[in-house]
Structures are given as structure tokens and as C-alpha cells.
């Protein structure tokens, strides 16, 4: 064992550094003051820090969630109801999901058996987001592309252990039945005929989202940015703050990327609504007709530049090669050029390659914050229902860092 004097310089929390496992009120206040972000997101991140020293995630039995559902529905429905076929859903790496059938007298419909999903945060997530914003967004966006119907939200965890929302269970699969993929839909391969059927829908839905007049869709939890530039600045600052809050082993390249991104924000006239995680693995399709039935995981939705979604779609780490071993398919669906051409035609929005490059760097950068920084903190503190999944996904962060490095190497 080396002498203590050799170790002293390296002790955690030394030299006035914050103990991130035990955030102080002063540190939280400084973080809030130092980063200008959407007020609802500030509330969510602050809540995360205030609860950080509390218990890790304890398994929540299905019976507890059923009790929560009964409590919530008792206040919302005037007629009898029952919960049936209650079970866990796996899939996403950040949220707990319970599927069930609600047997009820559905307003304007009559006696129904409606498949639903309760989506709840664990004690902390790799992606800390607002259930209220997600609920409002999914509810509203169904007007322009397939999204699950939304029923109720418990934003303050009045009925459930953590904030939760309830939406309709959509038919379909994320990958061909019987086919393996890596966690959370990464690495899903589609055969050529299926790719042909899905690609057009993939593009059309994205175009519809980016053309959508979201500012007049009644989503009160979203603060409307004063300008396109402010929309982008808020997003950058959000992820910069998350990095400070969560990272354990700092990554100098990440900070270099942060500086470059802040300094090179592209012009944006009108912020679109961005999905934030638009990729294979986040849509359901029915196998008998290859129709996309629902886009999922809207929690990262925010006002921003459409190129942000385009860049994630085309991230190298999220695609694969076609059967010829040479043609790279973005989001495992289609060659990049074909994707851009179809998107421009469907949306009327021109793809600016310089802006796209910026958002390639941004998408890789912010995904690193999520995978590596938040992934570390969540798994280390035992805050989720699947720390082992979260830990596994940290490895993706290093592939994404390489994407970021290559762009910065050419730009700097």
C-alpha cells in the first residue's frame, strides 16, 4: 500500500470540489444560476439533485403501481373500472413501464377494454426529463404522426412512487420477431423488403413533425424561446449542466466539444419541435402490414433545429451495413443520400451540410453526457431498476466520443 502522502492529492472531494453524491444547497443554487435553461427542465434537474442523497431504487412491485392507478383513476373517473393483464414491459433503458388492460366505461365510447402503459421514472434516469412535457407533447403530436394516445399524467408523484404518465398501448414490434438486437434497439437489422416498407414512413413522419406548428398546440409546460438561437442555447446549456451534475471521470474532449458548440451555433429562423431520439428502436410497426403504428420515447422532445434530429438519424453508431457489406444504412434503413433527398422533398426544409455537421457533433456530445456521465451516476448510486443496462450503455458513449473527435479534428 503506497504511503498516504502519495494518495492525498487524489482523494475525491479534495480542494473544494463538490461531492456530487451529496449535493449541497449552495452547489445546487450555483448550478441553477450558471445555466439558463427551460424552467420546467430546471425544475426537473433541481429535483433530481435534491433527491440524490436519498435512497436508491427499490423494486416497486406491480401491486404498488396498481394501487397508484386505482388512486389516480378514483379521482378521474365516475364509473367503475378494473385493471387486468398487468405485467412489466422491458425495452427502454431509462423508464419503468407497466402494461395493463383498463376495463372501463370510456367517455364518448362506452364499455371498453383498453390496453395501456404506465410509464414511470425510477429514482433517477440516464435521461432526466419532465413527465409533464412528455405527456403534453405526446398528446399533441398525435395530430401529425402516429403516437400513442395519452390519458393521464401524475407529474408530482401524488399517486405513484415517482412521476408517471399513462398512455395507450400501441400494437407492433420494434424489430422483426425472433431477431436479437443490442439493448434498447441498437443494432437492429431489417431485411431489404422491410426496409423498403418502413423507410418512406420514417421520413414522412419526421418531416411532419418538423413542419408542425407546435407553438400553437397548447403545450403550456414548454417555454417558447424568444428566438431560434435561444432555443439552441438552452439545449446546449441543459446538457452542459447535466455534465457538471453527473460526471465522475471528466473527459477533456467533451469540454472541448462544449466550447466549440457554444461558439458555432448555426442560424435558425424558426425552431421546430424536435423528437430528440428519432431512430430505429423508437417506433413500433405491425408485421402483417409493415405499418408504423406509434413513435415512442418523446421525453427528449424540445424546440430546436431540425438538423438535430437529422444528425441523430445519421449517426454512425446507430446504423449498420447492408447485405453487400459496403452500403451504410442510416438508422438501419436507407443510405444517407436517399434519406436526405426524401426528407427535403417531404418537409420542404433544406438540409444544410454545415449545420448538419454541427448537429452531428452536438448529437454525439449530448449522448455522451447521457450515456457516460448520467449513466455513471445512476448506476453508481443504484438509482434505476436496471443499473446493469445503464452500465452497459456507457460503452456506447465512447463510440460517440470518437464521432465527436473526428468532427472536431476537422473543424478545429
Amino acid at each position: 500500500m503506497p504511503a498516504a502522502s502519495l494518495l492525498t492529492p487524489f482523494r475525491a472531494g479534495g480542494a473544494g470540489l463538490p461531492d456530487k453524491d451529496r449535493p449541497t444547497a449552495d452547489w445546487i443554487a450555483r448550478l441553477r444560476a450558471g445555466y439558463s435553461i427551460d424552467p420546467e427542465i430546471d425544475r426537473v434537474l433541481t429535483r433530481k439533485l435534491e433527491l440524490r442523497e436519498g435512497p436508491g431504487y427499490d423494486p416497486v412491485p406491480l401491486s404498488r403501481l396498481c394501487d397508484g392507478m386505482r388512486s389516480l383513476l378514483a379521482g378521474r373517473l365516475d364509473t367503475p373500472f378494473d385493471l387486468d393483464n398487468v405485467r412489466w414491459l422491458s425495452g427502454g433503458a431509462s423508464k419503468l413501464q407497466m402494461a395493463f388492460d383498463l376495463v372501463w366505461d370510456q367517455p364518448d365510447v362506452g364499455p371498453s377494454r383498453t390496453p395501456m402503459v404506465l410509464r414511470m421514472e425510477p429514482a433517477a434516469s440516464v435521461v432526466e426529463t419532465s413527465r409533464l412535457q412528455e405527456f403534453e407533447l405526446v398528446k399533441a403530436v398525435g395530430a401529425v404522426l402516429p403516437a400513442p394516445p395519452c390519458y393521464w399524467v401524475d407529474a408530482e408523484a401524488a399517486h405513484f412512487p415517482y412521476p408517471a404518465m399513462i398512455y395507450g398501448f400501441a400494437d407492433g414490434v420494434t424489430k422483426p420477431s425472433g431477431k436479437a438486437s443490442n439493448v434498447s434497439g441498437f443494432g437492429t437489422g431489417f431485411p431489404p423488403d422491410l426496409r423498403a416498407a418502413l423507410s418512406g414512413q420514417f421520413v414522412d413522419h419526421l418531416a411532419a413533425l418538423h413542419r408542425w406548428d407546435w407553438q400553437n398546440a397548447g403545450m403550456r409546460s414548454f417555454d417558447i424561446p424568444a428566438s431560434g438561437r435561444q432555443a439552441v442555447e438552452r439545449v446546449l446549456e441543459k446538457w452542459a449542466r447535466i455534465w457538471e451534475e453527473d460526471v465522475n471521470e471528466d473527459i477533456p474532449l467533451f469540454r472541448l466539444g462544449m466550447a466549440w458548440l457554444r461558439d458555432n451555433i448555426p442560424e435558425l429562423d424558426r425552431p421546430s419541435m424536435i423528437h430528440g431520439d428519432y431512430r430505429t428502436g423508437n417506433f413500433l410497426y405491425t408485421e402483417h402490414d409493415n405499418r408504423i403504428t406509434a413513435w415512442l420515447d418523446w421525453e427528449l422532445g424540445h424546440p430546436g433545429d431540425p438538423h438535430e434530429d437529422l444528425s441523430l438519424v445519421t449517426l454512425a453508431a446507430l446504423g449498420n451495413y447492408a447485405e453487400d457489406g459496403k452500403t451504410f444504412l442510416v438508422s438501419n434503413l436507407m443510405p444517407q443520400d436517399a434519406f436526405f433527398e426524401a426528407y427535403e422533398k417531404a418537409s420542404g426544409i433544406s438540409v444544410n451540410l454545415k449545420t448538419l455537421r454541427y448537429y452531428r457533433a452536438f448529437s454525439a456530445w449530448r449522448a455522451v453526457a447521457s450515456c457516460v456521465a448520467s449513466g455513471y451516476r445512476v448506476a453508481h448510486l443504484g438509482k434505476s431498476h436496471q443499473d446493469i443496462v445503464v452500465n452497459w450503455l456507457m460503452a456506447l458513449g465512447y463510440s460517440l466520443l470518437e464521432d465527436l473527435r473526428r468532427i472536431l479534428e476537422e473543424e478545429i
Partner: protein
Amino acid sequence: MDIRPSLQIQVAIKAMEQTVLPAVDPGNTIALEQAGLVLAALRVLEQRVPLWRAYQRDELRRLILLAGEMEDAREEGVEELSALAASARRLLDSADAEAPELEAAVIALRGAVGRLLASRDHVHRTPLGKLVLAAAKVQLERERAWLVPFGFEAGSSDVRPIEEQLGIL
């Protein structure tokens, strides 16, 4: 004492493969996924645990080098980093330094570099930024090679095996 980590990992892998995984209820998809990941994590540990100390020593050497380059470039504000690098050199020279101590030194040095970058406006335009970018290339080659078993490198033919990079073959 023969109960070594290598043997423990080996028998844990076998238990997961032959006894635990086959017994998991196929309808419990969360349990199935996590049990599969436990097995995968054990396999990674089997390959990587023997290399961890060499990996940390390699990274610490390069961080010390980076600190030296910053001093040579007469960058302002490098005092904290220089002091930590000096301590890290003594640690590397100590025959008793174990992996956790090396880890702590790596984390401290990375943090100091990060604070230096955060303190500069437009740091990407400075010589400091270029030094960090160059160092990142080598660092990421190591990290990506280490993480190949996790399956996120799509056709990563550009990544040399970690054993080769660490000079262990």
C-alpha cells in the same frame, strides 16, 4: 490461496450459462435481459480484469505527458495540473501502487485538465485545445479497444486490440 478472481469469474460464467439463465422465466423479459447482461459483463471481466492495472498505468503516463506538454507550452493556470502530475509520477514509480490508487490519480488529473479547459474562453481555438485534441485521439483508441466486447463498434476495423496497444502480447 487459490480462490483467485479469474477462477471466481470462470465459475460464475458457467453457473449463469448452465443453471441460472435457462431457469429464468422467458416471460419475464426484464429479468432475461438483465441476466443476459450479467453473463456478458462476467465475460468482459474475464478478459479485462487481468489488463486493468496496465491500462490505468498507461493512461496515467499519458496524462503526465499531457501535463508536461502544457507546461512546455507555458500555458497559464497549469499549477494545479503540474502538482498533480508530479504526485502521479511518484505513484507510478511506487512498486506498491494498486489499481484503485492509479484510478484515483487518473480521475484527479482528468478533472484538473477539465477545469483548465472550462476556465478558458474559446479554448478550442487555443494551443491548449489542440494539445487536448491530440491526446484524445490516443485515449479514445485505447477506450474503444477496451470496450469492443460491448458490441457498439460497428465494423471497428480501425481499432487495434487493447493487448497490442498496451504492449502485452
